[in-house]
């Protein structure tokens, strides 16, 4: 039996045709409603660690697809960052800022404010944006052709007002 859910950008459908009156926008809490319910069910079925792993991988796939379908193609890194910034802002995902960029080491520190996933969440004492980690890793991998490991170090949920991610080339 073949795959049932293999991802394909066209699965997103033609929204202007399908939702002529409702339009492409949906309230953030509805997006979060689905995401946090998924989290809950996945955690109950597979445990916390596996649930996080699944979210990271889902983000990775989403990042690659986002890069391929929703971003302008660029050659140099700064233009790439600008393109990413404007794409994230245009789609209402969040405000991306680069804090440091070490091209030689392949290490980048970036922050995402007004983040779609976690901004405004209650204090939880742990980082929650695993999906975003995968998402950035997917995008960076698509641009550089190298595998990246992305870790959220500060999160709204840990009391920070911005989510901060450290991305490093994974040379294993």
């Amino acid at each position, binding site marked *: 039996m073949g795959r049932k859910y293999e991802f394909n950008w066209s699965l997103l459908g033609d929204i202007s045709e399908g939702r002529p009156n409702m339009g492409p926008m949906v309230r953030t809490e509805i997006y979060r409603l689905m995401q946090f319910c998924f989290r809950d069910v996945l955690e109950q079925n597979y445990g916390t660690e596996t649930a996080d792993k699944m979210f990271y991988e889902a983000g990775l796939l989403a990042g690659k697809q986002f890069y391929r379908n929703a971003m302008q193609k660029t050659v140099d890194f*700064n233009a790439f960052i*600008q393109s990413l910034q404007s794409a994230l*802002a245009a789609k209402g995902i969040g*405000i991306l*800022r*680069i*804090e*440091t*960029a070490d091209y030689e080491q392949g290490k980048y*520190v970036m*922050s995402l*404010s*007004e983040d779609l996933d976690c901004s405004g969440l209650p*204090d939880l*004492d742990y980082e929650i944006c695993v999906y975003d980690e995968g998402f950035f890793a997917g995008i960076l991998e698509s641009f550089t052709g190298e595998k990246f490991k992305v870790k959220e170090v*500060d999160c*709204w949920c*840990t*009391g*920070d*007002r*911005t989510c*901060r991610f450290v991305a490093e080339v994974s040379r294993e």
Partner: protein
Amino acid sequence: MKPEIANEIDEIIQQINSVLQSKALPAKLAEYSDQYPEMAKLVERLLALREFTFALSEGDLSQTMNLRGYWPGALKALQANLRHLTWQTSMVAAGDYSQRVDFMGDFSHAFNTMTIRLKAATENEQKYIAELERQQAATRESERKYRLIAENTDDVIWLLDHEMVIRYISPSIERLLGFTPGEVEGKPISQTPLPFFQVVFQSSTIELLTAAGTRRPVIVECEQRCKDRKMIWLESTVNAAQNSSGEMIGFTGVTRNITKRKKAESLLYQAYERTKKRDFFNQLAARNDCNDTEVLEWGWRDKIYVPKDFSLFFLSMDTLPGDEDSMYRKQQMMDALVDQLNRKERTNAWETARGVGIITPALADAARKQKELAAAADYMKYISMYLPDTPVYIGTANYSDGWANFANRLKNAATAIRIGRQVWPHQRIYHYEDCGIYQVLAPFAATDEAAAYITQRIGPLMAHPDLLETLEKLLSGLSFKEIGAQMYLHHKTIQLRKQRIEQLLNVSLDSYEVRMALSSALQLMKIVKAN
């Protein structure tokens, strides 16, 4: 609450406050921290916040703070923003002016305005540099062109500053005058080996060039000696040089060799003068009633200055008849001869159909004829220096006051040569007044009657030149013996010849009338032959 507890709470609050207020930590803080673990944690967090905040205030963005929660989160957000700004600023410094700051209030606006301005300024600067480079390239190109022109033209281009120092002179100066630019550049014009500059810059030239409002060039012609001592004619075109703000900064000029043009002009002028004189005198020669006043007036009008009383000469040459080419050379020679004669003082010469006419002022005094022959000899000598290989004859006209007999006198001068060459073949200079009876016979010799008369009188002797010669000697009154000696013949032969002549002509040579008639016929024959 017990007063001791209330006191202790007060004290603890003060201790904690001092963490916020003073740099030094109170001594008792450690004591309380040991006593209350939660307070120790609080103090530790406060100190961590203090340290992190202090580092931020010092501009140290590298610190990490492990605290979580609202207050540390706000500080970390500030750190994240500042780090991002640092990164953006380094991008701007590297020339990426597309960086924009959003969501940071007034600062965003200020920063974005700065990058927009920087971008505009950089673009302006690039435009300015590009324009500057374009202008420099254009300047180099035009400089290269001017240099190419200056160095490759035969004209000499030069530039003087306002102190009359030669600032530039093109290398062609060496081709023109033999001096190199190095010999003149940097020197005032009075200290160069080029005196023509001083002629060019006479005060009148400078006045013309510096007169307000004039921008016309001044052209000056003058002669200059080359380094090899040769003289050449130069023409200089001079302009006042101005800088872009209209101030006079010196002079520019172009100097060229016009020797050929000058020569051509001079030849043209000579040809004009020659033609003018030829037409003037030949017109007079065609008239028989010249009036002195008229002639002098016409002369004045044409700037030909002739004397009222004059001696008149006619000059003829033995020239080879030839093809067109030699005709041309003959004409050239004739023109040169006429010009040469006209250069002589008190002399007017012109070309006629068969020779050259010459007049020179004279007075009817006793020695007039001798003076005329001397003048003719003088002309002869003058011409022979110029045409040493061409036989030249000069006939001098009879004298009469004024211009009334000009046409006749000119004919007579020519006749003097014609007769003279027959009668006195060893001379070259003849005077009409020496021609005696020929003066009367000459006009008659040109008529048909003359030819008829000659045939009638001596026609039968024409086939016998020796008899004609003998007849001439018999008519001169010489004896048979004398004639025989002259002709290397026996006197009896002469006697026989006399009889033969009388027989052929059917006359007696002893008759005075016959002798006169035959003598006339012989003289006429000579003149007719000369014609």
